[in-house]
């Protein structure tokens, strides 16, 4: 066996042995270790390092870590995402049936709107455009008619008395 300190070939055995791991190839390495002071030094030193690193515990995590993260995420979410958020799981899992149902409703709606056999009257659409003044006048006319109607009803009631 080539000495792992001198060649990279069995270096992982050296690394693993220092961590206290035993795998295939360990037996051969152990035999080599008995006679190799360089490897003995590495393994002993590696165990010391391993034990020293074990003593180094990480600190406790801030209690509001999650809250801060969610706050940052929330700042990045667009109004569009917020609007459709409640529908997302439904769309994700039932997207196809929902789309199919929507398509069916649309098709049925079109069929009822235009029964079979009745041809459309014209291919062009007639659009009536009103000026703002026309609309105001119409509303004023309606209000006047309403007042007139009330006055007539009041006169009729007085005449009955």
């Amino acid at each position, binding site marked *: 066996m080539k000495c792992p300190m001198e060649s990279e070939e069995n270096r992982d055995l050296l690394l693993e042995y220092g961590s206290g791991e035993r795998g295939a*190839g360990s037996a051969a390495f152990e035999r080599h270790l008995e006679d190799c002071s360089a490897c003995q030094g590495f393994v002993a030193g*590696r165990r010391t390092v391993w034990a020293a690193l074990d003593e*180094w515990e990480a600190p406790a995590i801030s209690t509001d870590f999650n809250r801060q993260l969610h706050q940052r995420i929330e700042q990045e979410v667009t109004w569009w995402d917020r609007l459709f958020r409640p529908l997302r799981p439904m769309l994700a899992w039932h997207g196809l049936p929902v789309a199919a149902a929507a398509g069916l409703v649309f098709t049925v709606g079109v069929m009822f709107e235009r029964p079979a056999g009745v041809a459309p009257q014209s291919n062009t659409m007639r659009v009536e455009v009103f000026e703002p003044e026309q609309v105001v006048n119409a509303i004023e006319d309606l209000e006047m008619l309403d007042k007139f109607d009330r006055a007539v009803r009041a006169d009729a009631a007085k005449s009955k008395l």
Partner: protein
Amino acid sequence: MPAQPDGAERVESNMGSLAATLDYDAELMVRVKEGDGASFDVLLEKHRSPVIHFLYRMVQNRAVAEELAQEVFLRVYRARSTYEPTAKFTTWLFRIATHLALNSLRDGKNDRRQESLDDDSSEGPARQVFDMRPSVEAVMVKETRLQEVRRAVAGLPEKQRAAVLMHKYQEMEYAQIANVLNCSESAVKSLLFRAYETLRARLAHMA
């Protein structure tokens, strides 16, 4: 760390463990992609501590580590729409974390690091030691040893440091560390060998 037999067997076991663990985290991330926020919370809960602890040991400052960890998870969330489960989730996660940690170290964002190394009594579980009522001397000895360990790790070149921390504390396989650091498996072994040699020399007196 699980026992690793020879090269071929380890590759096979890596593939097996990859297939076994790839699915759960990756599946959760796919759900996040579909808009399931609860799955993101599950991933956060599961990986929060390992990521923060890794970052803490990299930059050796709790505030900076948490700030970087926030950025890691924010990036994961941002990337949800383009996520493809082509690799192990933790590989991707630690690649982001390592990238941010190395950038932070290079930018000198954690200039307070040295300060925290000199006076780190406010951080960490050292506070818990008082519950067991050890002598003042014992506390001081432990604190000195910890400072030596922290200094020894901080003195390692960045990539060696990242490799050692992933190997020792995250118990990652060489192949996964190689994926995170974007190098070959033999390069990782070489990095680890040199790192442990350096640490051995610096911490020899602690035996």
